[in-house]
């Protein structure tokens, strides 16, 4: 890092003069070679925010079967009728139905040895979003909110955390980090999200905002000063979004027909395309959700259908990010809250199984074309290189250059790390 670069950072920072701070620091400590670790960390944080790193989480709600996705066991009893296909990387096979993903295998790490203990949807979903086991006394921030707090640029007019697609348990949010990092929900990707478009016309909307401002000022005069100040801050932010040209990100009509077809004109395909458009504009965390993975019955038929929607979206997303030179700064993670039982139940389904499950990671410095970890031949246990939820989260942080051990103060005054425990997955990067 050079001093000149620090000064550039200073000019974009609002409300606090980084430049003069640095001059003082450089005179006193830098010359002595003793810039404090806190100062370095602060500078590093500023730098991060300029680099527009993003994460796109492809969330398979319900718990995707590892055997019908990226850890197939063809020809075994537990493997069921699922066949395996070759991929762009010799020696790596995944389940049939994931051909578009297979083509991108050079960018992908397949993680087959995730292991955990939570087998209930809500508790596991919470854990796989926050890194923590649920507790009544503290609402842990979702990793996405934590990342957004570290990565978000001050100039961003779009929401810093966006969740595309709804469903149960979709409400894990900023926890104690507060409203600025609460996920912004987009239910139907394609057009403007609910309530972002003005109900009347833009000129009339602006006229109304003017009247609102004058009326609020009256309340401020009569003792409501603090309330009005907060209110104004939120309304400024909301109306900035409403009037922002950046909301064109939500308009998928701007994409070519070929691109839209490649992603697939499905809820998930549209969600992935929107995720790319948001990441391009500096939104640090985007989650795209697909429901329906809780395949207690008719597992194979259900996953055929799901793969038909998820595979093109994910394959196109990774390819598109690469083509646009965004893959290095964008981490794509595919996962759900747990895996499914290796044994097929009498209804042709698979039940909850946290003991072994899988995930995909691509971009963000992740080494492509490799498999990490394996399950046993019958799929009931991890055979090697077990990876826990904290291990995965620490790795995600590392990919995005975020310090996983950074502590935040919870409302009860207890410091909490972004990720508690865990070590980065060996061999994931490079």
């Amino acid at each position, binding site marked *: 890092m050079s001093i000149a670069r620090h000064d550039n950072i200073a000019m974009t920072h609002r409300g606090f003069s980084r430049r003069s701070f640095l001059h003082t620091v450089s005179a006193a400590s830098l010359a002595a070679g003793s810039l404090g670790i806190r100062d370095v960390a602060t500078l590093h944080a500023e730098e991060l925010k300029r680099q527009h790193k993003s994460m796109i989480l492809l969330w398979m709600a319900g718990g995707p079967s590892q055997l019908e996705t990226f850890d197939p066991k063809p020809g075994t009893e537990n493997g069921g009728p699922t066949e395996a296909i070759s991929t762009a990387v010799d020696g790596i096979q995944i389940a049939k139905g994931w051909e578009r993903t297979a083509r991108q295998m050079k960018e992908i790490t397949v993680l087959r040895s995730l292991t955990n203990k939570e087998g209930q949807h809500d508790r596991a979903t919470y854990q796989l979003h926050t890194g923590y086991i649920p507790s*009544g*006394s503290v609402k842990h921030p979702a990793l996405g909110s934590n990342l957004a707090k570290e990565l978000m640029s001050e100039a961003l007019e779009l929401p810093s955390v966006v969740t595309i697609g709804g469903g149960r348990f979709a409400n894990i949010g900023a926890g104690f980090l507060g409203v600025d990092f609460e996920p912004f929900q987009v239910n139907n990707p394609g057009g403007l999200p609910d309530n972002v478009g*003005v109900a009347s016309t833009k000129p009339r909307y602006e006229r109304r905002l003017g009247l609102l401002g004058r009326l609020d000022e*009256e309340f401020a005069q009569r*003792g409501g000063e603090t309330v009005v100040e907060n209110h104004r801050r939120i*309304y400024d932010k909301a109306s900035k979004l409403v009037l922002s040209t950046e909301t064109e990100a939500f308009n998928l009509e701007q994409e070519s027909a070929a691109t839209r077809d490649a992603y697939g004109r499905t809820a998930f395909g549209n969600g992935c395309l929107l995720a790319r458009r948001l990441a391009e504009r500096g939104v640090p965390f985007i989650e795209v959700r697909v429901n329906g993975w809780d395949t207690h019955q008719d597992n194979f038929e259900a996953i055929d259908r799901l793969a038909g929607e998820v595979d093109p979206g994910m394959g196109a997303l990774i390819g598109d990010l690469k083509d646009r030179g965004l893959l290095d700064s964008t981490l794509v993670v595919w996962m759900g809250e747990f895996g499914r039982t290796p*044994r097929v139940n009498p209804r042709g389904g698979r039940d909850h199984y946290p003991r072994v499950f899988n995930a995909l990671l691509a971009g963000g410095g992740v080494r492509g074309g490799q498999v990490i970890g394996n399950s046993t031949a019958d799929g009931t246990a991890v055979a090697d290189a077990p990876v826990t939820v904290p291990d995965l989260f620490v790795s995600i942080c590392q990919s995005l250059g975020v310090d996983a051990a950074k502590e935040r103060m919870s*409302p009860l005054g207890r410091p909490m790390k972004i990720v508690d425990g865990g070590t980065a997955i060996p061999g994931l990067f490079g």
Partner: protein
Amino acid sequence: MIANRCWNRKTPRLAVAAVAWMGSLIGLANGAEGPNPHEVAKAVDARLKQAFEQSGVKVSPVCKDEDFLRRVSLDLTGQLPTPRQTTLFGLSPAANKREAMVDSLLTSPEFGRHWARYWRDVVFTNATNQRAQLGRQSFEDWLAAEFNRGAAWDEMATALLTATGDVYDEGSTGLLFAHDGDPNEVAAEASRIFLGIQIQCASCHDHPSDVWKREQFHELAAYFPRVGVRPIRDGERIVSYEVVSVNVSRPNPGDALRENADRMVRMLDRNGDQKISKTEAQNARFGGPLATAYDRILEVADADKDGLLNATELKNVPAPMMGRQPNTEHYMPDLNDPASRGRLIQPKFFVDGSEPGQSLSDENRRGAIARSMTSPENPWFAKALVNRMWSELLGEGFYMPVDDIGPTREARFPEALEALAVGFTASGYDYKWLLKTITLTDAYQREIRAASGSPDELPFAAQKPTRLRADQAFNALLTVLGVAEPTPRGGGDGPGARFQALRSPRFQFQQLFGFDPSTPQDDLLGNVPQSLFLMNSTTLSGALTAQRTTRLGRILSEFPDDGDALSELYLLTLVREPSKREREIFSEYLASVGNRAEAYEDLMWSLLNSAEFLTKR
């Protein structure tokens, strides 16, 4: 009117004793008459006044009638007063009209509904199990009825701690169901909610800044190991859940199957195929648990998929993979060996050190902790509620945050809190008594004032403006738009109807505007999706047009004079007349827009989006 009611409906004897010396200090009418709300309110104000005078703090004047009416209606019933109520209240010459209004609000059915919703949010925002949402409505309905019948706070707390039954029928199971009966979570929440003490910080380690030790947390958890939550099935379908007492340490049913597989096949197999069919399992003499759970066992164990169970399959019934192992005792985990069972811990109450005994039944354990927690000798039970209610009504508590009090925390104006807590205990934990007493204080009836921002600033010298809770805001919108509460489609009873409630407009609104009621007001800032909803949602904008069918349209045709129309709109939305300055602002605006209907639509939009509309002032 309740003013003349005897507040001493249920005075615990101990409380009377405990109160004796305090009573003489704060001028309580002692004994059979019970504490008089006026006198306790006066004593509280006297304590505050003393401190204000010492520090030279100037108190804010008494608020105007319309401010009081709006404030007290929102606080006691969660509703906005109508323009007609506001006008009549302002015109009434009665000297005691504020107290009379309080009394009348306390007897309205909306009182119970409002506070039931408040506590529903306290309990359910922290639920560790999402399916607990299924118990929200029955919890709210139960509590609303309790509040309206005048149930005392200790009765409700006892019910919440000792409940059993179907979560749809017994609303009092809500707290236990919210945490799946997990002893650690239930102990932590019971302490936080009823005592205001965050003892769970000690669950993993001795807390440096607290007096509580790790063992004391687990001694509290040891009151709850026998709470069970299990599904109620109709065939294979789960139709509800029930909270039960699990007093017999049952081995896992799977263990019995695995161990007795050969014997079971011998006894039940009648056609000699060495397999048990469903019909065979229904053998009246030997079948038992195998018959009732046959389909589920078959599902996990039928390896050869012939629809029958043989001895090998029974021996291989998989052990439950995860989840809490049911246990009738509580064990404190060994931090050095987390996989081990840990150390057996007996129940003991950290506040007074009482120990109910060993190997007690669930009923006795939970009965004991309910008695200990609600005992008049436990000061934190009364203080926690007094502090919480004071904070809810005045915007700030003696202790902040409201659910982190206790002996190591410092209260501001501890004598004022003590006066209220002693009175509340002596009233027999009468919830209405407490709210009435708080609303009678001068502190409650002051005008709002902007915070000076000075660190020496004392609270309660002025009323603090606070953000409306989701249900208050929703009710306010219904009142202003003049529409009845939209109900979800469907109706009827049964699981389907229960899920419907989770799709009602009120529930959706709560999802968007809800917050944990234990959050300090300073942290409640609102958020972008909320303002987007109020500014742009099609539902609202439709109701805000000046058509003949809308409230606004009717006002405009009823009041051709703009001065009158403006007054009516302000009374309706903000429960006050517009100021001279506000009249000027609008008449300028009206002139610049040049279209009456449009200008009023814009005004109505601005009023509903204003900071004041969402604020209790």
